[in-house]
């Protein structure tokens, strides 16, 4: 007899292989676990940082000590294990930091192999897709490609640690502008111990000639990943940036506390896309990444534009609210999100749109997919401040549930302090209809493909925001999560 589409969905919910759970066997230099001022001095010294940066770190650390770890977890029955901040090693780099590779040939073949498995062969991918890849392996950037071509255009794209040396005045000018060191518990921790990340600077009037991309990966056991990304687009500049994240399988929970700051001046535009596929833990909720990330963009200039797009399928717990401060008049903030939770994953994600300038606009599209025992929460804030005349916001939050053990939740906060504001918020919840699957079956499409097709259709508005080559990858990622769904 024909298969029961419900069984198909349940099976899908239970079977999700983490395809990328491998460990690179490579010698790395790791600081012993623990955190105190000496560790921070150690990190700073290894990176030969200027004094001001060390001071900045130490100040953040001292502030962090006074802060309480947020108890956010919405679902107390989840197997939440508190993070032991003294058990984390705060610095891990492939050993030969002194003589870092000057070209791809010098990169450890095992590393390159890792990237192969991730589906990002540096040379090929970069060449074929026209993408410059700044690959962050644990804490230190090991290879940067296409830098020269970017240099020609005047674009700076380099590891954060390099920017500290090469462009100290820019780093000092913008670091912490959007996410102050004391912003929140995890941002303060990041500010104290961040090891590397990406720095992008697009000067006045320049359109970045290619998509910029960074792949982050947590490799060594028990190392937190605290990368820091700073993107500045000057007047009239524009840039599109993509990060992809994958981490191997581990039993213990690992912490990922990144900070991303975006600054767009007059008429500048920044598009920031994320495909997050950190290890989600297993079906019993053991292991997996705690993804506690602070991402914020400042639309500083008039007519500036910041757009966040994210496809979140990994991590055990995600707390992430990429936000926009719409300070410039007529500035635009956008947030497009797909979050998929399966097994015992929890995603609590959304955005904050703070309207300060006149005629500012924001647009939010959030698609949550819950399966297995997954819990998916949209949490967002739209705030229209009194001076934000004629502000506009449109928000759409849609949830799709698969199976009867998952949850979908929507917690928007809408604060209108100017009467000229027009704010619309809509949310809906649906399941995949058996009649929809049957209809597709009747046209010769298998139940598994039908589920995948419907999920992709559900996410279409968000996937359409991704740069073309990554949209394909995102679709594939959703599909991989859906594969083997039908017995």
């Amino acid at each position, binding site marked *: 007899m024909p298969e029961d589409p419900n069984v198909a969905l349940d099976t899908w919910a239970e079977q999700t292989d983490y395809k990328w759970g491998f460990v690179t066997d490579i010698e790395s230099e790791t600081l012993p676990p623990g955190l105190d001022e000496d560790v921070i001095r150690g990190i700073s010294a290894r990176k030969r940082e200027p004094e001001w940066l060390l001071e900045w770190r130490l100040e953040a650390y001292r502030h962090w000590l006074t802060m309480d770890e947020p108890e956010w977890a919405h679902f107390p029955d989840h197997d939440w294990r508190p993070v032991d901040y003294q058990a984390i090693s705060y610095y891990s780099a492939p050993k030969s930091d002194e003589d870092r590779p000057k070209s791809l040939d010098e990169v450890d073949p095992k590393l390159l192999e890792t990237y192969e498995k991730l589906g990002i062969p540096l040379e090929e991918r970069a060449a074929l897709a026209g993408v410059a890849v700044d690959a962050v392996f644990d804490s230190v950037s090991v290879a940067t490609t296409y830098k020269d071509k970017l240099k020609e255009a005047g674009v700076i794209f380099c590891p954060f640690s390099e920017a500290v040396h090469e462009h100290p005045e820019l780093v000092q000018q913008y670091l912490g502008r959007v996410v102050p060191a004391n912003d929140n518990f995890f941002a303060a921790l990041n500010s104290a111990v961040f090891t590397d990340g990406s720095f992008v600077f697009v000067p006045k009037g320049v359109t970045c000639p290619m998509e910029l991309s960074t792949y982050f990966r947590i490799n060594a056991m028990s190392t937190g990943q605290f990368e820091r990304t700073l993107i500045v687009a000057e007047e009239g500049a524009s840039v599109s940036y993509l990060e992809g994240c994958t981490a191997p399988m581990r039993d213990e929970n690992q912490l990922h506390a990144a900070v991303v700051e975006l600054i767009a001046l007059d008429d500048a535009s920044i598009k920031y896309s994320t495909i997050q596929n950190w290890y989600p833990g297993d079906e019993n909720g053991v292991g997996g990444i705690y993804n506690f990330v602070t991402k914020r963009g400042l639309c500083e200039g008039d007519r500036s534009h910041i757009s966040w797009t994210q496809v979140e399928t990994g991590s055990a717990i995600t707390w992430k609210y990429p936000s926009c401060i719409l300070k410039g008049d007529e500035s635009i903030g956008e947030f497009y999100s797909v979050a998929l939770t399966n097994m015992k994953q929890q995603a609590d994600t959304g955005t904050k749109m703070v309207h300060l300038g006149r005629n500012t606009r924001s647009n939010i599209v959030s698609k949550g997919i819950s399966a297995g025992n997954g819990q998916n929460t949209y949490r967002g804030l739209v705030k229209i401040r009194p001076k934000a005349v004629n502000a506009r916001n449109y928000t759409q939050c849609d949830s799709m549930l698969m199976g009867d053990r998952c949850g979908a939740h929507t*917690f928007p906060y809408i604060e209108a302090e100017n009467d000229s504001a027009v704010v619309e918020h809509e949310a809906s919840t649906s399941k995949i209809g058996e009649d929809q699957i049957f209809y597709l079956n009747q046209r010769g499409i298998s139940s598994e493909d039908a589920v995948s097709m419907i999920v992709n259709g559900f996410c279409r508005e968000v996937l359409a925001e991704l740069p073309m080559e990554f949209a394909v990858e995102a679709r594939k990622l959703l599909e991989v999560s859906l594969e083997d769904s039908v017995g």
Partner: protein
Amino acid sequence: MSSTTMSDARPFQDDFDALDASSPLADLRREALDRFHELGWPTTRSEAWRYTNLRPLTASDLALAPEATVDASVIEPYLIEDAQVHRIVFVNGRFDDGLSDIGSLPAGVTVGHLADALKGNADAVMSHLGSTFDWKADALDALNMAFIEDGLYIHVPANTQLEQPVHVLHVTVTDPAAAVVTHPRTLIVVEDGSRATCIESCFGTGDDTCLVNPVTEIIAGHGAHVDHYREVREGQETWHLGTLGVTQGNDGQVNSCCLALDGKVIRNAMTGTMEGTDAMANFRGLAWGTADRHIDNFLRVNHMKPDCNSREYFKYILDDASTATFTGRIYVEQDAQKTDAVQTNRNLLLNEKARVYTRPQLEIFADDVKCTHGATIGRLDEDARFYLEARGIGREAANSLLIFAFANEVIEDIAFEALRSRLETILLDRLPDGGMFR
């Protein structure tokens, strides 16, 4: 009577000690006061009170309102014309037999003192008191519980239609010398297959600061149908911080509508729980913000079993420097398949100083459900106004017409005709040129 301030270690303790300790409620009341002291006044640090700041109230000297009487002329403007009702009057939270006119009731129906009911059948009444929401979670609910002296008890036995509505008038006699506090309590039990309508009208004698802290509970049996209205027309300095708890069995319907028209701060915390299948719940509200009024509807609807529908519809008209907040949560239990819930909050901002904070929320643990919520914030539709102007209607009148149309979406669903027309009149009286639309 003694007054209490923030600095007291145990606010209201003296008032409490003066209560009759032999009441069957004595233990419950003591527990409740302890709970109040444990929780302390709510602050904006808690999510439930995030946008409503009680500090200006709790900083004043508060005292339990003394026994008082009012002249019949005081309640006269609030009586519902052209309708037969069972009338109950409370003055400062205490039953006023002289002003009440219960009239004749169908056999078996009780409309009377909660205190009498407690004497007659304490266990049954006690089992309902505080059963419809978590009274221990909120300080004001605990405080009400601590000060139940008397209250209203409506009991409709199975398969009985209470044709005439019960009209409850809560009068607060304000005092320029002290901020009085009243804790009106209403318990409505409508058994299987029965029907009842209850209107609560809340108003005061003056514009002195006071706290009205009413709690109403509705327990609707299988197939029961209850219509409930709360009309808030308090004095201009009154803090009306009300709570409504509803539980429903299978197949029934409960409609509750809150009309926030006058008062300094008007909060209505509502919890509706559908414990059975195939039930329907409607929560609606209309709020009118002028001057520096603050409005807060805080709603939670729990879908616990399959095949229930709920509709939540709240509209705010905010003028001057008024502020408003709406929090509405639809909760769907894992078992509650085929839930159909729609929640809407619409806000009309008429003045640049008006503010609105809205939180429509969904919390869903069942997969085969249809749940939606929507919130909008905006000004009057200029195209619509232009259209009216082009038809020769003056600007003021056009505005009034559009505002009335906005409000009327809530009003027009009021099943009790006499109340509906009275509310239309109240609204039109407040609108410039409103008279021309009568």
